[in-house]
């Protein structure tokens, strides 16, 4: 693009020549520093961004040349959970309404009473008590409750692929694993495929079958989780792994090495 000035277009390549496949039923971790392109990649998969070139195949078919009804079905089959449930939930919709809404849009549960039953079941499924939360607004919920609500909303339409973009990084450390355990359990019960975006390699190790490392828009390395952690083949992956604080190693050993470094 040419031209200078305040409104001149500048092109930034956020994701560059990435090819990766996700198998049905697996949990793929997408890790990398901020700005590495992991969120852009996920947004492209859910069609919130359009690639300049290349394609995204879902069950063998390019999602960017779907017919209208295919596109609508795709929007049901693939769901995304965002980092900040405060910003991704409508502040003026109660928990019940937030979860019911996608059922209405996709015409998934016939009459209003079966829809209500299904909504209450979803609330229970994510470990919340319908009596306590269904009439509450997002600001009345704790961070963990809010994130559970967005999970219920995403799962309301029985998706096949779930993209979770840093779903626990805004939460207190003490409740993060609770949310990950919930995702693990739901994945098993609902036979989901999950793409989990995170910069926290510890959490990725806990949750993911395979890990893909991104750096400056490029895919650096993909391997089974323990294999990647034990034998990283790329120097960048090694640097990333070495940067992770590890309380499991002796604090003193770490401390003296940082002192020298």
């Amino acid at each position, binding site marked *: 693009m040419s031209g200078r000035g305040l409104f001149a277009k500048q092109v930034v390549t956020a994701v560059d020549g990435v090819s990766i496949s996700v198998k049905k039923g697996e949990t793929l971790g997408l890790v990398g520093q901020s700005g590495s392109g992991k969120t852009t990649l996920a947004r492209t998969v859910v069609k919130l961004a359009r690639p300049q070139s290349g394609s995204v195949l879902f069950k063998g078919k390019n999602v960017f040349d779907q017919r209208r009804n295919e596109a609508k079905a795709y929007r049901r089959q693939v769901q995304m959970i965002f980092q900040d449930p405060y910003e991704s939930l409508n502040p003026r919709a109660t928990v019940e309404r937030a979860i019911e809404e996608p059922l209405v849009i996709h015409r998934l549960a016939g009459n209003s009473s079966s829809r209500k039953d299904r909504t209450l079941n979803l609330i229970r499924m994510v470990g919340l008590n319908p009596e306590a939360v269904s009439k509450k607004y997002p600001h009345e919920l704790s961070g963990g409750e809010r994130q559970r609500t967005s999970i219920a909303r995403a799962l309301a339409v029985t998706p096949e692929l779930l993209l979770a973009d840093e779903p626990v990084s805004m939460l207190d*450390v003490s409740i993060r*694993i609770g949310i990950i355990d919930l995702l693990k359990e739901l994945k098993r019960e609902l036979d989901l495929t999950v793409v989990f975006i995170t910069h926290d*390699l510890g959490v990725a190790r806990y949750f993911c079958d395979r890990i893909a490392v991104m750096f400056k828009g490029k895919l650096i390395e993909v391997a089974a989780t323990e294999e990647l952690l034990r034998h990283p083949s790329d120097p960048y992956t090694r640097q990333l792994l070495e940067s992770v*604080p590890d309380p499991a190693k*002796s604090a003193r050993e*770490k401390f003296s090495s940082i002192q020298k470094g």
Partner: protein
Amino acid sequence: MPLVDVKGLCIDYKLQNGYLRAVDNVSFQIDEGEVLGLAGESGSGKSTIAHSILKILPRSTRVSGSILIDGTEVVQMDDRTARAYRWKVVSLVPQGSMNAFDPVITIGSQIVESIRIHSKVDKADAWRRTRELFSLVGIPEGRAKGYPHEFSGGMKQRAAIAMALSLNPKLVILDEPTTALDVVVQRQVLGLLAKLRRELGISFLFVTHDLSVLSEIATKVAVMYAGRLAEISNSEAMFASPKHPYSRALIHAIPTLSGDLSLVKSIPGVPANVLSLPSGCKFHPRCPSAFDRCMKEEPRLLQMDDGSSVACHLFDRGRKDGRE
């Protein structure tokens, strides 16, 4: 004499109808060159403690107990003295400090301004000092004339640290300094802090909700729960053998790269709400080892043989008096 000596600190925030105790009977010390990590969930009172040391709590707040910094009592200090003490003796790298710079003024000018407000130096000297600080925190001196948007997140954090160091304070309080950074940049900032501690002998109070970061930098760790100290130990003891069930649970709530994943477990329930605290030990509703006494009686901080202190009834069995 320790640099920081906090004894029996209680802090109450004023509400519409009465007071809310945010910090209850907290005592700790920080020696020169030491890094105390203050860890806890949101609402545990850790930032309130940091703000009380800096004397930047709202005027309506009630503070009792004692905070001695380098031998000077801070709790009763008047505003005038506090203004001179702040920044020169104790400075702050605030939470979200990366976004704390004015976007339309160069970072260097902002540091020069803060130097000149607090000490009588001319502009040229202040600029000299600013360039010195930039090289100390590892930013090329030439970047002093840069605007905040020209700096990356890690560089802005370094600049905020440079600003906090501008008047040679003895203690720097860091409030969640690495939370917004990714791990590679976080590692660099931790390396910088270790270097400053080693080269300048500065003490740090490092406030965070992320215990794993403290394993990298803290010499001593204090774990807070609902405004109270749950445990305070030197770093090795805390990570090798945490005593309080809450410290243990917090450490096990973090999956690490080398640890045993089968031990990873979330803490049930939700962080304590200081507006409606349970009876007895405030952690008992979430505690896997709670017994009758925990519901009735609040545990006192017990001194252990290895120098750590724990507020838990499990460690009080067969002990006649728990010293405070």
